[in-house]
């Protein structure tokens, strides 16, 4: 029952929210679409929170996605034991960074001006990412070789989700901590459209190709052919 909830109901629910509510928010009101940075108010502990958290989570997330997209390539890469050990160690290191960062990010919210600008959404989000980092690191330490088993448990199950034919059997035998990690992941996806987490959806990359100064002309026919 719990398995069905975590591996079938919650994922579809979360994906639906993310897919439908996020654009709604984008088109109805973008005035609250922001990182809601608190560096301006408090920077000393943010430094130790934001940097490890982001460098950790961006790379780890990328790892998850690469494993999902190219399972067979990764599989052959990991058949070399030393490669597996090296990659697992790097992943664990990054995981510890996210854990460390997420603890700091949460703790710094408890006092002073940062507390005053913290909304319920922020509390929920920060708590979720802390739990997510914690369960991830726990698996890295005690449910070893996750890179290996991820490829033929979670990945096929995720594909089965995509084909609208969820095969819970792939993952139902895994330990409870894995189930919590999955639940956490989809809860984060579910709250995405309701929190500041939307900040990473539109990566600012246009400017890499743009000239430095941007003009906008009120007049409709642009007089300048530039």
């Amino acid at each position, binding site marked *: 029952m719990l398995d069905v909830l975590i591996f079938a109901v919650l994922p579809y629910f979360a994906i639906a929210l993310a897919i439908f509510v996020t654009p709604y*928010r984008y088109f*109805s*009101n*973008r*005035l*609250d*679409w*922001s*990182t*809601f*940075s*608190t*560096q*301006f*108010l408090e*920077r000393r502990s*943010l*430094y130790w929170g*934001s*940097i490890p*958290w*982001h*460098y950790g989570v961006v790379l780890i997330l990328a790892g998850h996605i690469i494993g999902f997209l190219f399972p067979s390539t990764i599989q052959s890469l990991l058949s070399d034991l030393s490669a597996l050990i090296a990659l697992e160690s790097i992943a664990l290191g990054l995981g510890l960074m996210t854990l460390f960062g997420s603890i700091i990010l949460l703790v710094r919210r408890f006092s*002073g*001006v940062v*507390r*005053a*600008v913290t*909304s*319920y*959404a*922020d509390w*929920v989000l920060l708590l979720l990412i802390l739990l997510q980092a914690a369960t991830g690191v726990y698996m890295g330490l005690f449910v070893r070789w996750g890179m290996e088993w991820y490829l033929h448990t979670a990945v096929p199950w995720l594909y089965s989700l995509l084909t609208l034919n969820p095969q819970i059997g792939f993952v139902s035998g895994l330990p409870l901590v894995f189930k919590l990690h999955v639940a956490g992941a989809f809860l984060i996806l579910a*709250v995405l459209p*309701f*929190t*500041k987490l939307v*900040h990473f959806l*539109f990566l*600012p*990359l*246009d*400017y*890499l190709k*743009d000239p*430095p*100064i*941007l*003009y*906008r*002309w*009120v*007049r*409709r026919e642009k*007089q*300048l052919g530039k």
Partner: protein
Amino acid sequence: MDVRAQLVMVFNLDKCLGCHTCSIACKNIWSDRRGAEYMWWNNVETKPGAGYPKFWEDQRKYKGGWVLKGNYVKLRAFGKFSTLLNIFYQPYMPKLEDYYHPWTYDYANLYNAPEADDQPVAEPVSLISGEKIDIEFGPNWDDDLSGSPLYAENDVNLDERRIISSFGKLFMFYLPRICNHCLNPACVAACPQRAIYKRGEDGIVLVDQNTCRGWRFCVSACPYKKVYYNWNTGKSEKCIFCYPRTETAQANACAHSCVGRIRYVGVILYDADRLDVALKVRDEELVEAQRRIILDPKDEMIRRAAKENGVPDSWLDAAIKSPAYALIREFEVALPLHPEFRTMPMTFYVPPLSPVLATQRIAYDVEDHEAIPDMEHLRVPVRYLSKLFSAGNEDVVVDALQKLIALRAYMRAKNLGESPDEQILRKASLDTGATERLYRLFTVASYHERYTIPSLHREYLDVAPSDERRGGRGFGIIAKPRGGL
């Protein structure tokens, strides 16, 4: 030639009283909101002094503006890729305390305090958290040289720090500042989201509140620290040059309310094609290079080129009447603030002359005063002014001051019924006609001579006011800024 129009403000520093009326006018209209309490889009600071935010001119600390590297002009802090690497935490961004912690007073305590031997007091409380705070710094904390050993003495433009403690040589003046609506705005270039833009028609630089995601690179990149981060809405904000007013040919709130009548607003035409060249000269040549790209609005060829670029006739006429063009280009008495930041600022300052009574030791009595002291005896050191207004080129400042001195000497003689000495004008490269015009501009010029702002004629621009704005509350907030669960 790519002729564009720009709205420009000029400040005559000799006349600024430091009354802060302009700041209040601005705050009442634009920044009297939660998250914006600490912002002063228009602020007036005492020079020498720390300024607002504290020591904003010190780019060793804030890394704002551009630098010339070989044949490239680059943002001082980050290139495009290092922007991405520093996006999670910005090393050079000013913090709240660099401005000040906004506060109010717990007035209710005056009524609610229980009976006691002492009078109840209204203690200061933070406007952000509501907690009691100790006020350690505030807006214009160092006004009129207060706290000099802490603030004025550490002014980065000051060579001779002791001047602050030497009563006989002490000097000060006021420096009102708004966003300069630069021609090469560092804030625009630094924004990875491309939320900041320069309006083609009038050159006003704006932050699109719908596009801004709060990455805050603009705050760091602006060397004048004139983009502010709103901690409540999570977006950056800045001076909007009162565009809803200028679009309808009204003067900006700060200019309109200026008690000292020190401000001038007008159109200039400039050649956008030559911008690049003008940005790549040595520091000492910057003022001259900046002047050269400003075009003569009476020149037929330039007018034709401007028209082809879509500059309306009313703007061309306004450019001819523009006091900004006269002060900056024609008479060359108005100078840009810190041109060495290479943003090519579009506000200009007539450097202060007063008090002409020089220093204590060389005090002129009233008779001597007729002669008007020479440059060396002016109280404000030329060196200091040159660091503010000409990237260290003293000649540029001396030329401007010489004109102001000649103007005074000539007009004073004239008003006293003496025969004025035209020689002194010629030495300062002025003639009688120019002098009369300058005199009028600096003294009795009417509202419409000081502010020659053409309407943007939005009604003809074929852009219907957006539906979402209709019936709205004006600038910024259409819906509630803060979302969440």
